[in-house]
Every structure is written in C-alpha cells, then in structure tokens.
C-alpha cells in the first residue's frame, strides 16, 4: 500500500511539471524557413520579429541526418535526411542568435537575427 502512495507521490512531481502545459498545441503564424544543403545553411542569416514566438522550419535537403541546435535559442532537434522539422523559438530579445548543425559543425553555421 505504502509503495503505491510513494509512487503516486512521485508521479505528483511529474504532474506539477506537466500542469504548466496548457491543453492543445498552439501554432504561431510566423514561419521562417532555413534550408540545409551540402551541410550548409541557406540563408546563413534569417530575420525574425523580436519578442514573439516564431516557428523555424528546417528543410534538410541532404541525404544524411543533421542535428539543428542553438544554445542561444535553446533548441535541439534531429532532422532526418531529406526531411523537414519545425521548432518553436522565442520570444527573443532583439539580437543575433547563432545556430549550427551539430553533425557537421565545421560548415553548418548560421544565425537568426531578431529585430
């Protein structure tokens, strides 16, 4: 019996976290596309509106997987070969936010300019 109480108490912690999640995934209207080709980003710099949630669409035209990552924008997502992914970023203060492809960091470098 106590075991169950213990387990449910542990679950309560997880629930505290998920309680923050509002129902349904809302989608921002702003979608900005970034293409990956030959392990490079195109365009290298993209402009997005500041102080707003923005969706980045990453279109990987290479055959191999890439990991789209940015510490500055706090995103990290695998893009399969010839696949697309969406990540939501922001609200970002005006500024430059670099991103990179972790699997090909030497060439895959780019940045988001929030303004």
């Amino acid at each position: 019996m106590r075991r169950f109480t213990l387990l449910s108490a542990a679950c309560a912690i997880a629930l505290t976290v998920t309680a923050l999640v509002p129902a349904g995934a809302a989608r921002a209207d702003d979608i900005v596309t970034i293409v990956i080709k030959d392990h490079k980003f195109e365009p290298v710099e993209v402009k997005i509106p500041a102080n707003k949630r923005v969706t980045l669409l990453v279109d990987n035209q290479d055959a191999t997987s890439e990991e789209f990552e940015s510490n500055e924008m706090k995103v990290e997502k695998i893009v399969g070969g010839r696949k697309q992914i969406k990540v939501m970023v922001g609200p970002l203060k005006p500024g430059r936010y670099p991103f990179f492809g972790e699997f090909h960091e030497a060439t895959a470098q780019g940045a988001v300019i929030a303004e």
Partner: protein
Amino acid sequence: MLASLIIVFREVLEAGLIVGIVLAATQGVVGRARWIALGIVSGIVGSCVVAAFADAISALFADTGQELFNAGVLLIAVVMLAWHNAWMAQHGRELARDMKAVGHAVRSGERSLAALAIVIGVAVLREGSEVVLFLTGILASEEGGIATVAAGGLGGMALGALVSVLLYAGLVQIPTRHLFSTTTWLLTLLAAGMAATAVNFLAQAGILMAGGTILWDSSGILRDNSLIGQALHVLVGYTDRPTEAQLIAYVAVVAGILLLTRWAARNSPRIASSVR
C-alpha cells in the same frame, strides 16, 4: 576522425556522468552491477531502435514526436529518481549499517536498482540514438567511413566509461556516512535538471507556450556547450540561459523530492519493510 570522436564523447558524457553517480549511489547494494549493465545494454539496443525509427517518431503528434519522446523519457527518469531517493530515505541507514542483516531491504533494494537502471537506460537511449544517427550518416557519406565510425564510436564510448569510473572513484572517497546523503543530493539535482530540460523540449514543440522568457544570461561566465558547462548541466542542471518555466520546473522538482524523502524517512524502516 578526431572530430567524430569528440562529437560521440560529448553525447556520451551525459550518460557517463549519470552512470558514475548511480554507481556511487548504489555502493554496497547487492546485484547492482547486473542492473546497471542491464540499463546500459538496453539503452544501447534502444538507441538503435529509436534511430531506426527516428523519422517516424519525429512525425508523430503533428511533428512534435521527437520533443514529446525526449520530454517523456526525461520525466520517467525524474519519477524514478524521486522514487529511488524516497526509498533510500527509508532504507539507506540500514543499508549503510549492515547489508546482510536486512533481507527485506535487499529484496526491495532490487526495485530501487530497477528504478536507477531505467534512469541509466533512458540517458543512454536519448544520447545514444543521436550517436547512431550521426555515425550512420558518416557511414553513408564518407569514403572509409567505417574506420571513422569505429574510432569515433568505440573511442567516444571508452571516454564516456572513463568519465563514469573517474566520477565514481571520486565520489567513493567520501566517507560512507556522508556518501549516501551526497549521492541523494546529486540525484535530486540531476532529476531537477532533467525536468528543466524536459520543459524546454515542450516549449520547443510549441506545447508549452508560457514561461519562455529567458531570465538571465550567464554564458559570459560559463557556456552551456563548454565541457565544464555540459558536465555541470548534467550534474546540477546548469544552463546559461534558463527560462521562467525551466526555473519553476527545477525548483518544483527539488522541493517535491525533498518533501517526498522527508515524508518517507518518517516511516519506520522496520514497519516499511514488513509491509509488502
């Protein structure tokens, strides 16, 4: 070749540190080697499965499958860590006193080990599937890719194992009476950091819309992607740009686990182990 080894090592580092903490936290518990090995092996097998179905997982739930998967397995690990700490609060003292005299505790100790094996399995799974995708990409695209994959994969894993051993060796220098309270704290902060990471995945997926504002930026002092920053990220959940939601999750998990362990410790160990 060196570049691939470094990438693999960075991915393996997280799992390596977690294995090191778990090894120290289970010091003296019978059968721990088997459980920890089981966690690592199932994590590696799971990595290959997840990598094989990466595109399918990613496409689930309106293309938020990857984030939900990551957040989900992280939250499972948080629950397992909370449960383990509560169990340790009930039985830790008997464990430290005399392993052989507490038959019941040893038996339920297996359950606690299973919880930690899941935590290890999840850590290996998350980072491992990225390693598999990275290495298969090299295999597919480079001349002589096999040598790079072998050097990167095996070398990275060996370095990860070295991290585990070093952290373990360091932690067990702590006198036994302080060891368990230290590892309990480490596991608590590990859980809190995982919850904060999970919250970030939910924000990235557009599921968690609130609390996305970044509270401070300490990247000038210590960057997330530096080696120390990354190690501290695993150990205490350090991040150079925490969001409001991440801080809330972090504090909530620390407070939740503290309350849970305090509550569990109040229950007499003898009564606890006789209630089956």
